[in-house]
Every structure is written in C-alpha cells, then in structure tokens.
C-alpha cells in the first residue's frame, strides 16, 4: 500500500513534468516553422496542447482528489533562487481549471486560428497561446515567489502580445498599452510585497510568515491585494479589462477572462490562506471590493453593446463575486465561525472554477459569432439561432450558467455565497451583521442584473430576425469551433448537477442543495407535462408571421434593440451611468427670447477614466514633458546642468561631511 502510494507519487511527479514539457514543446513548434503557412504544424501544436492539457488535468484532478502534494524542482539558479513547483490542493484546483479550459480552447483554436491572413501571425498566435497557458500553469503551481513572479511576468508578456494581435487597429493599441501599463503596475505591487516577504523570511518560499511589525503585515497585505486586484480587474483597477479582452483574439479573450484573472485570484488566496495571518478588516475590505466590483461590473455590462466588452464587464462582476466569497471567508474565520468560513471559501473557489468554464465558453462562442458576422456590435446581429444552432445552444447554456440559474454550475457558487450571507446571523457583532445585510442586498441586485444582461445578450445576438446583412449571411462555424464550446457547456451542466456529490467526494460537508435531485425532478416533470399535453391538447401547429401591427412582413428594424432593452435599467440607474448633457443655444435677440439654433449633446461619462486614470496619466505626461524639455539640444544648457550639478554636489559634500 505504502509502496503503491510511493510509486504513484513518483509517477504523478513525472507526469506533471511531462505535461509541462509537452506544453513547452507544443509552444515552441510553431516558432520553428514560423514562416510556413501549413496548417499541419499548427494543428500538431494544438494537438499537443490538448494532450498536455488532458495529462495535466488528470494529474491535478488526482492530486486534488487524493489531496496529495506533488513537488518538483526544475532548475536552481542559485540555492535560494529556484524554479520549483508544487501542486497542493489549491494549486491543483487551478491547474485543473486551466487545463480544462485550455483543452477546449485548443480544440476551438484549430478552426479559429486559420481565419487570419498572416501566416507568421497565425503561428505566433498558436505559439504565444501555448506560452501563455504554460505560464499560467507555472504561476499557479509555483512553490516560491521567485518562480511566481517570473512566470507571472511571462504570463503578462505573452498575453500582452496576444492582446496586440491585431495591432493595426488603433483601439487594439490603446488597449495593449493600457493593459501593459496596468499589468506592470500590478507587478510593482507584487514585487514590492514579495521583496518585503523575502526580507522577512530570507527566502522566496511561500510560507507562513510571522511579522514582527504589524504595520508591515498590513502593508504587505495591501500591496498584494492591490497587485492582484489590478490583474483580476477589481474595480477601481478594472479599466484595462474592457479594453484588452475585446481587443484580443477570441480564443485568447477566453483564456484571459476565464483563466488569467483567476490566476490573480489564486495569488490572493495563496497568500491570504497560506502566508499571512488575516485580520477582520481585511475581510471587510475584500468583501467591499468584491461587492463594488460585482455590482458596478454588471451595471456596466448591462449598458454595453459590444459583445466581448459586455463579457469583459461581466468578468469584473464575477471576480467581484469570488472576492465576496473570499471576504466572507476572512470575516467568518476571524469571527470564529469556521463552518461558515468554509462555505464562503468553497463558494469563492467553486465560482472561480465555474466562471473559468462558462466565461471561456461564452467568449469562445461569441468568438464564433464575431467570426461569422464580422462585428462585435450586438445591434448588428440577431437571428443567429437559426444560422448557428450549435453555437447558439452553447452560448445559451453559458448564459444560463452565468445568470446563476439552477441546476447549472453558476448557481452553485453564488448559492454558497448567499447561504453564508444568510447564515451570518450567527455573527456576534451587530455591526458586522448589518454589513452583511447591506452587502447581501447589493449582491442580490448583482445576480438579477446579470440575468437581465444575458437575456439582452442572447436575445439580441441569437433571437429574432437578423438586423444587418452580415448577420443575415452568417453561417455555422467549423466543427472544432463547435466542439470546444460544447465540452465546456456540458461541463457547466455536469458541474452544476453533481455539485453536491463533488463536494462530498472531496471530503467537504457542505450543505448545498442536491441539484441532481432537482435536475431529475425537472426532467421527470418535463416528461410528465409533455405527456399530459400530448394527451389533452389538439397538437395542431401552424407557422406564421409575427404579428406586426398590420405590417405585412416583419423585418429586423422592427424588433427591440439591445439599447432599447437596456433602456429602463439605464434610466433607473442613471446615478451610476453618469451622463453629461450639454446644450448650446443661440438666439436672434439679446434678450434670449427668439430661438435661432441650438445644439445638445449627451455623453456617457466614464467615471473611472475621467476621475482616476486620466488625471494620473495627465500628471505623468506633464511631468515627463517638463523633464523632456530639459533636453534642449544646446550644449550650453548641458554644460550649465553639469555646472549646477557640480556646484550643488560640492556644497552638499561640504555640508554633510
């Protein structure tokens, strides 16, 4: 028995390593054949990705299931600087998530990557995608902060290039630069935190750290929180996300939105759970950040008409949901309610996992839609359910899941979080309970808005009549682009239905409803209803035009638009969608009584850009202009600088020594 376990352990280690090597090999292959336009290399490479994903999924599933830890060290630069990796349960969960999604994304990409025109770029897309995923896997399995930050950076770098894939477009460039700046900013916070941790621990290991100075602990927490928040797209650091995700190719958006922001969540969890000793206010901070992200994210999503940007905002929302769970965990565990804490954490983890699945599903399918219609504007789509039936059904399942509808997977995570909210009456502190209620109501708004948002999205994209020529001409995508999403859709269903069983088999006694039972009940009652109707009704069916108030033939211009759909909510929430209205009026006379002409405009204010990002950018720009102005090009000035510097230096030396 022991021996068997030992061998199993050895084997797992090797398998894990083999998986990594396979990823690397797969990613290098397109680089070797960079200038060839043959599909074969790309296909082989994507095939390797798929196999490697399966392998890693297998390993991580096993590790998570058996709760064993796999540790390998690949290379030691110096004794204290090592590339060593470790799969414990948390890491294994995230590796599993990454492998599952990347498996489907790889399958999807077989069809998707071929639609470009540049052969080099197609190869680069495949290769960078591989490096991107490999980096993510290595980040979440890093055993020390050095490896973590190393692969964190390669992850950022490869994803940056992937965002810049269509670099000719101005908006892509803007997105890319914005993304890069933000991602570097997040690295600043992380490196600072890691360096401080290193200074205390004397090594890069991620281990429980005892802080002599409590303010340092606070500082490290805040640094990590901000650093990871930027990457995760937590409001107010979210602004890069709605730019970068739409700009990148759809398979990459799926990976970025489904996985990369989860990597940040992983980081947060890793350090909060394993390295730092949390305090109560951390939980409150995380919870508040989560609530704000969730609610603002979905409100912005509601207004959005760009399909991929809508999904990106929705990712912000879901990250908020995950943070809410994490915040609840922190609060409850600091309040001595471990069972509720576990509920919150399980909710966060499960939702993170599911979000990875359904968000990449949605991104992949919307990628198919964009592929077919050539636009991201949902106002220009419509009626695609008839033209792209498989894509439609996949998207539909994703939409159901993301709207947290039972018995699909998205429901379970939110359920657990709701449950721990509702059980918060166990908290001793009334102020905390009050906080919980406040957060709960906002949280409820979130999930309802998400449903509204995805009704809008699905309705506008797939239902009714095509609104434009492009949508009219759309056709179903290649098989691989159907297969990938279908697997994810199936997972959405399976993970939801069997959620209780999954928790149980992992050894967590979490009181989640038996969705399997609910599912069976639904099917049974469907059968029953169907049977009753067959027996009791006439069964006659007629196909006819939609009634259009007397118009002979219904066309796309008559149906409700996406903007129209969102209009009531936009009006109700106009405090958040800050609009700026400007009007100019000219008059014939001086008393302003005879109106001549006028101009009125309305503009959606982008709060965070206008009040946070732009002022900072402007300040940096002003400073840099001022500094760059010093470089006048005149030798006289340069010597004068030297002169002043020397004089000042001499005075300083005379003064301090």
């Amino acid at each position: 028995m022991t021996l068997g376990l030992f061998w199993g352990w050895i084997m797992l280690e090797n398998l894990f390593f083999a998986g990594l090597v396979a990823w690397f090999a797969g990613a290098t292959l397109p680089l070797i054949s960079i200038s060839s336009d043959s599909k074969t290399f790309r296909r082989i490479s994507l095939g390797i990705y798929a196999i490697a994903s399966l392998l890693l999924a297998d390993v991580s599933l096993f590790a998570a299931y058996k709760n064993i830890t796999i540790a390998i060290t690949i290379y030691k630069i110096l004794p204290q600087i090592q590339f060593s990796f470790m799969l414990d349960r948390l890491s294994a969960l995230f590796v599993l998530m990454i492998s599952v999604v990347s498996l489907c994304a790889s399958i999807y990409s077989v069809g998707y990557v071929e639609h470009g025109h540049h052969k080099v770029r197609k190869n680069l897309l495949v290769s960078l995608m591989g490096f991107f995923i490999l980096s993510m896997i290595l980040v979440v399995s890093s055993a020390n902060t050095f490896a973590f930050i190393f692969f964190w950076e390669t992850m950022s770098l490869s994803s940056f290039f992937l965002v810049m894939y269509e670099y000719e477009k101005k908006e892509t460039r803007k997105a890319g630069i914005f993304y890069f700046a933000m991602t570097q900013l997040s690295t600043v916070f992380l490196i600072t935190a890691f360096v401080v941790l290193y200074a205390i621990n004397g090594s890069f290991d991620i281990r429980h750290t005892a802080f002599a100075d409590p303010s340092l602990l606070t500082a490290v927490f805040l640094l990590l929180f901000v650093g990871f928040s930027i990457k995760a797209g937590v409001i107010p650091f979210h602004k890069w996300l709605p730019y970068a995700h739409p700009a990148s190719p759809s398979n990459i958006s799926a990976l970025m939105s489904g996985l990369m922001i989860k990597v940040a969540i992983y980081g947060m969890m890793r350090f909060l759970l394993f390295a730092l000793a949390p305090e109560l206010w951390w939980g409150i901070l995380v919870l508040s950040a989560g609530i704000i992200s969730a609610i603002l994210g979905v409100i912005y999503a509601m207004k959005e008409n760009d399909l991929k940007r809508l999904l990106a905002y929705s990712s912000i929302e879901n990250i908020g949901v995950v943070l809410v769970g994490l915040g609840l965990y922190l609060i409850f565990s600091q309040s001595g309610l471990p069972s509720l804490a576990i509920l919150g954490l399980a909710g966060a983890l499960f939702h993170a996992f599911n979000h990875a699945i359904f968000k990449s599903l949605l991104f992949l399918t919307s990628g198919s839609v964009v592929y077919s219609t050539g636009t991201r504007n949902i106002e220009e789509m419509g009626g695609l359910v008839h033209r792209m039936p498989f894509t439609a059904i996949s998207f539909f399942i994703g939409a159901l899941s993301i709207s947290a509808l039972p018995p699909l997977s998205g429901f379970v995570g939110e359920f657990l979080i709701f449950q721990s909210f509702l059980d918060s009456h166990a908290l001793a502190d009334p102020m905390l309970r009050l906080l919980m209620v406040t957060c709960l109501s906002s949280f409820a708004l979130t999930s309802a808005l998400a449903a509204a948002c995805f009704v809008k999205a699905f309705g506008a994209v797939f239902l009714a009549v095509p609104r434009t020529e492009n949508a009219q001409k759309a056709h179903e995508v290649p098989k691989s682009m159907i297969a990938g999403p279908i697997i994810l859709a199936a997972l959405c269903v399976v993970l939801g239905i069997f959620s209780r069983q999954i928790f149980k088999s992992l050894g967590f006694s979490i009181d989640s409803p038996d969705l399997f039972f609910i599912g069976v009940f639904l099917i049974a009652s469907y059968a029953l209803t169907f049977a009753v109707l067959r027996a009791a009704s006439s069964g006659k069916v007629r196909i006819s035009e939609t009634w259009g108030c007397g118009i002979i033939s219904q066309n796309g211009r008559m149906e409700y638009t996406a903007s129209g759909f969102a209009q009531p909510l936009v009006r109700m929430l106009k405090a958040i969608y800050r609009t700026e209205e400007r009007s100019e009026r000219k008059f014939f006379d001086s008393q302003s009584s005879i109106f001549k002409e006028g101009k009125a405009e309305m503009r959606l204010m982008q709060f965070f850009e206008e009040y946070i990002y732009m002022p900072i950018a402007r300040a940096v720009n002003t400073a840099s202009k001022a500094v760059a102005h010093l470089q006048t090009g005149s030798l006289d000035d340069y010597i004068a600088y030297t002169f002043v510097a020397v004089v000042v230096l001499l005075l300083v030396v005379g003064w301090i020594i």
Partner: protein
Amino acid sequence: MILAAYAVASAMALAFISIFKWNSITRVFSVLHGAAYLGISISALALGKIPTYYFGGRYLFIDRFGIYEIMIASAVFLFAAVYAMPHSKELVQSGELSEKNFKFAYLAFNALLAFVVAAFASNSLALFWIFAELSTASAALLIAVINSRKNIDAALKYVFVNSTAMVFSFIGIILIFLASEHSLGHGTLNWDELAAGSGLFEPTLLAVAFVFLFIGFAAKSGIAPFHTALPHAYSKAPSATGALLSAVVANIGIYGIIRAYSILGGNSARLSISPILIAFGVGSVSLAALSMLQQTSTKKLIAFSSVEHMGLVLIGIGVGTQQALFWVLFYIMAHSLTKALLFFSSGVLHRQYKTNKFEKMPDALKFQPLASAGLIIGSCAIIGMPPFPIFLPKLMLLIQINGVSTWLLAAVLLLLVIASVSFVLLLSKLFSNVSTGEAGQQLKRFEVPFGMKFSIVALIAIIIILGVFLPDALKNFISAIVRELRW
C-alpha cells in the same frame, strides 16, 4: 603575458588596418581583433593566473573584475565588428561615410577597443583616467566620422560634456593621492593598494575625493544630469558604434565608480557617500523614465534607457552589500548584451527607413521581420521581463534596495513601470504603422546582409539562454570578483 597578447592583437589589427588598403581586409581584421580579445580573455581565465601585475604592479594589471569587463567589451565588440562588416559597406555606398574616412573610422573603431581594454587593465587611477579620456576621444571621432553636421555637433557635445566632467575626476585623483600620501606615507594611485589601505584613510578627504571622481565617472556612464550628450551621441552614431558606446564605453564609468567605491570599503566615508550615489541613481532613473515617455526616436529612447539602467546600477552600488554588487555585475553584462541587440536591430530599421523616428517607419514588421523581432525581444529584455537576463538581477537588486528603504523600492519600481511603458509605446507606434495602398509599395526592401543578421540572431540566442540559465562558472566568477574587490 595576457596583456602582451592583448597589445599584440591590437597592434596587429591597427597596423594591418593602416597598411592594407583593401576595405574588406580592414573589416575582417577588426572582427579578428574582437575575436582575439575574446579568445585571449577566455584562455587567460582558463589558464593564466589572475590577478597578474605588470611593471611591478605600478601601471597595469589584470584582475577578475578587469577581465570580466574586458570580456563583455570584447564580446560586444566582436558582434559589433561582425555587424559593421556589411554595415560599413552600406554606409559607404549611401555616402554617409566617405571613402576617405573609411580607414580612419575603422582605426578609431579598433582603437576604441584597445583604449577601453587598456582602461580596464590599468592599475593606476591616472592611467585609467587617461584611457577613459582617450576612449571618449575615439568614440567622438567615430560619431563625427559620418558626413553630417549633426554628427559633428553630437560628437562635440559628447566630448565637451564628458571631458569637462572628467576634469573634476582628475581633481579627485589628486585628492586621492593626497589622502594616500597622508595616511600611508607614500602617495599611490593604484587600485589595489588604495583598496588595501582604505581603512586608514582620512574619511572626509576620501569622501571629497570620491565625489570628485564620481563626477567624471558618472558622466562617462551617463548618470543624470551628466547624461545630456548621450541621446545625441547614440542617435547620431552608426549602430555598431552606438552599441559600443552604450554597452562598452558606458561601462568604463560604472567600472570606475565600482572601483572607487570599493576603495571606500573599510572606511566610514562610505556612509556619507552611499546616500549620494542612491540619490543620483534615483535621479537618473526618474529623469530617464520620464524623458523616455516623450521620445520619438528609437535610438534616443535607447539612450535614455541606458541612463535609466545606469541609474539603477548606481543605486545598487550605493546599497553597497556584497549581494548587491554581485547582481550589479551581472546586470552590467545583461544590460550590455541587450543594449547591443537593440542597437543592432534599430540599425537595420535605420538602414531601411533612413530615420530613427518611429512614426516614419511604415510596415516595419513586413519589411524587416528579423530586426523587428530583435527590437521586440530587446525591448522586453531591457524592461526587465522574464525570461530575459535583466529580470533576475533587477529583482535581486530590488531586494537589496529594500534593505535601504521600502519606499525607495516602491519609487524605483514605479519609475521602471514608466520606462517600460515607454518601450511599449515605441513598439506599438512602430509596428502599428501600417501603410495603406501605394505608399507602402514604393518602399524598397532593404536586404539585411548576413553579418547584421548574424549579430542580431546570436544576441537574441545569448540573451534568452542567459535569462534562464546562470552557469555555475559565471556565478563563481562573479562571486570571486566580489571577494576580490573586498566589497
């Protein structure tokens, strides 16, 4: 022995270049010159006993630090020479370099290496100063040799800014001599003797002396506010020269600062000097980072990036721990190689478009995929991204900086972000410039010759390998340098 070999190599190279009138032989000899230097250095490391002293140790010696710098210099020179083989031909063909000046340029090119190596091999501070000045002179000639008024202008700026600052270094030398005379009884200017006796020196005098020395060396390495000539010089110099300027000549200054600072080793003067170095380092980093945002020309951006990196290195030196020095040394090498790659790549683009303005380079990716790749990889490397070699020393230096102050660390990191954004702006502006219609068709593709390709590809390969692997030999070697410097 080693030194003799160097001298012979240089003498032969210079002699052959001046004797033979065929340009192609000139080119080949300069490549051989670099190769010989590299070969001699490696075999010296493998066989010879280091440190070695010459002339009774008074004037010249070769220690590990010296040979480390020599190796960096000769490697970059070798690549630059290979790169220059076709590049110089192009320059002559396009009339930028007149036929008459060709030989002269090559002489200066090779002399530069000889001077730089001589500077690294000088045991005497005064000798070091002289060779540093001579390297300035030959570098200036290399900049001015191109037939353009702008080049003369840039060269003059380079000469004036550097030399005026170096004058103060000489005052520092005199003060050091005074200090050693006062404390040791006999005046000396030898690095090794100074380092050995530094504990006895009068701290205030030593500190003042160091500050004077620092002014000149800072100018040499491009520390703000003495950096002002660099953007002009780097952008006007032909790319091979640019690579030498930023990857080799700038190292002389840093070398000098490290040496001088190691003299402060056992002395309390170090405490008062360290903040000054850090202040200058932070100043350079911030000035460079902010200036970089506004740059519109590739080579100017690279020049400011040099200022930034030298600032970071200076901070590392100012921190003063052994670890910091270890990583500073590694950093210098990584920086030199990366900078060379950037210069070579932007040189190819300059050939293609006859400009350094990245707004005027349409379809760069299409016309010059290799150079573009070099520029992209080089940019990623220079901003300290993994898996490139600057990442590791940067991270480790930051850890050392944290030992001084966490705020300093945060400030430096934020500045580095600004710098890296500038590079991304460069890349995005450069490669997004896609011509539509006929404008792009008119441009004729510049066929990149083998030599230029070779240098770029080789440097890319070296950079990627060094980014992930730190060979034990290198590790031990750098550690030995740190010990040798008695840091």
